[in-house]
């Protein structure tokens, strides 16, 4: 049995999900030979540390660590202090400077800890640098959850499609935009009405700019460009148009001619823009689904679809990444 001591940095929607998935799948993980112990959880209030492994039940009802933390250190300091094998970095995304996640990930990798993250910011700002730090220190950096949530895209390409040349990837990488456009088309809602509905349902943030202006999708395009295509793309290199100007009339007109309008991100062309998607195309998924088509030289075009966000869904991608670190042969632990 391989003991895996995990430090969880960030205790929000995804952080809670990670604890829950580790709890629910504890037996299954043991049957894979992994004894996963979350030895520390940190948020802005401090760190809860228990070297024998934190009982997820204990944190189940807690929204934050306020009044629960037993160490008054957070962030980089907590990563340094706690003896762990792997850091799960799930703090808020900032794609301008990447912090606080960038500092956390650098610290973890350079102290010889594997990192699994759902935080796009550090990867958008410094993917090649972080990959270099991981290599220098003989550890792995995994980030499946940053791109398509639960949709297996990066592992599909790196594992199952290995040997193929990847010619291009295009897809819907933002469930909020997809939901808004789907409702506008089906219900003939205006953009602002559909947005309000999405906000009421918790699908869109109070400040929706990050999603509807295509910023989130562009961040994912940058991550794919750098990780899959070996580019050195920056956020500024992406040409981005969001969905605010789409009208129900335009959606209707497109529909009559056999098309949906979807916000499509593309690599390596580095574009994010609304595009006409034929109704019969595999990319024509609705609701909050994400989808990606991967064009390869040997296997033709392969399309995957799945939920792009959600607490448990994102956590499941994180846990899969953790498992793959310990079951891949490149690393002996």
């Amino acid at each position, binding site marked *: 049995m391989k003991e895996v001591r995990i430090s969880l940095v960030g205790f929000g929607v995804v952080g809670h999900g990670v604890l829950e998935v580790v709890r629910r799948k504890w037996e299954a993980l043991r049957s894979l030979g992994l004894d996963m112990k979350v030895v520390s959880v940190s948020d802005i209030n401090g760190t809860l540390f228990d070297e024998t492994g934190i009982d997820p039940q204990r944190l189940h009802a807690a929204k934050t660590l306020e009044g629960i933390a037993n160490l008054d250190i957070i962030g980089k300091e907590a990563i340094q202090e706690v003896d762990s094998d792997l850091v799960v970095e799930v703090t808020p995304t900032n794609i301008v400077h990447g912090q606080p996640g960038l500092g956390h990930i650098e610290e973890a990798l350079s102290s010889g800890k594997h990192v699994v993250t759902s935080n796009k910011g550090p990867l958008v700002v410094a993917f090649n640098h972080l990959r270099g730090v991981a290599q220098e220190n003989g550890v792995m950096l995994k980030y499946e959850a940053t791109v398509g949530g639960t949709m297996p895209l990066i592992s599909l390409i790196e594992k199952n499609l290995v040997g193929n040349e990847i010619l291009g990837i295009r897809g819907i990488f933002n469930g909020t935009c997809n939901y808004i456009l789907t409702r506008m088309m089906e219900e003939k809602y205006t953009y602002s009405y559909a947005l309000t509905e999405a906000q009421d349902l918790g699908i869109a943030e109070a400040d929706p700019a990050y999603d509807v202006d295509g910023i989130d999708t562009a961040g994912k395009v940058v991550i794919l460009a750098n990780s899959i295509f070996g580019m050195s793309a920056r956020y500024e290199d992406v040409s981005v148009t969001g969905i605010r100007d789409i009208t129900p009339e335009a959606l209707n007109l497109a529909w009559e001619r056999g098309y949906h309008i979807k916000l499509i991100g593309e690599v390596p062309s580095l574009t994010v823009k609304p595009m*006409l998607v034929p109704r019969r195309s595999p990319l024509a998924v609705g609701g909050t689904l994400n989808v990606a088509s991967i064009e390869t030289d040997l296997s033709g075009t392969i399309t995957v679809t799945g939920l792009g966000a959600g607490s448990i869904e994102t956590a499941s991608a994180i846990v899969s990444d953790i498992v793959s670190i310990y079951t891949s042969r490149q690393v002996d632990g």
Partner: protein
Amino acid sequence: MRLSMDLELQDIPGQLMQSLEPFKKYKGNIISVVHHRDRKTPRGTVPVQIVFEIDPSNIENIKRHLEENGIVVVRAGEDRFIEEISVLLIGHVLHSDLGDTINRIDSTGFAEVEDLSLRMPGIEEPSSAYLRIRATGKEEIGKSLSILRHVGAEKDLLVIEPIEAEKI
């Protein structure tokens, strides 16, 4: 001179090769053959579009030869537009001189706007236009799209292109 011909073939092996014979015989230079197997006519025939270069005096001979072999010639002539693409525009489509927008494509000589529909929800509100553009080839489709992108930027119109337009 570059010409094109729309034919209808029986869906039996050998028909396509047979239909190309007179082009060889009358020294036509075939540029492209588009075989629409997926768009069978109600008569069960398969539409085929052939673009070729030839001395126009030979076109009647080719037609006759084809018809003698039971191949239906639906149309023959100068229509060179073999590629098409759909584009949607959103914004003040009409008030930014739609006639001019269309003319920028039509005046190229290699492409034209073939189909147009408009939706105008209200005076001050953005309208939408669907355009189908036909052009002499894929490259010309690409050029037409870049003209439209340019016009879009100039007139503050959102230009929505189809995903097939660009190779990924």
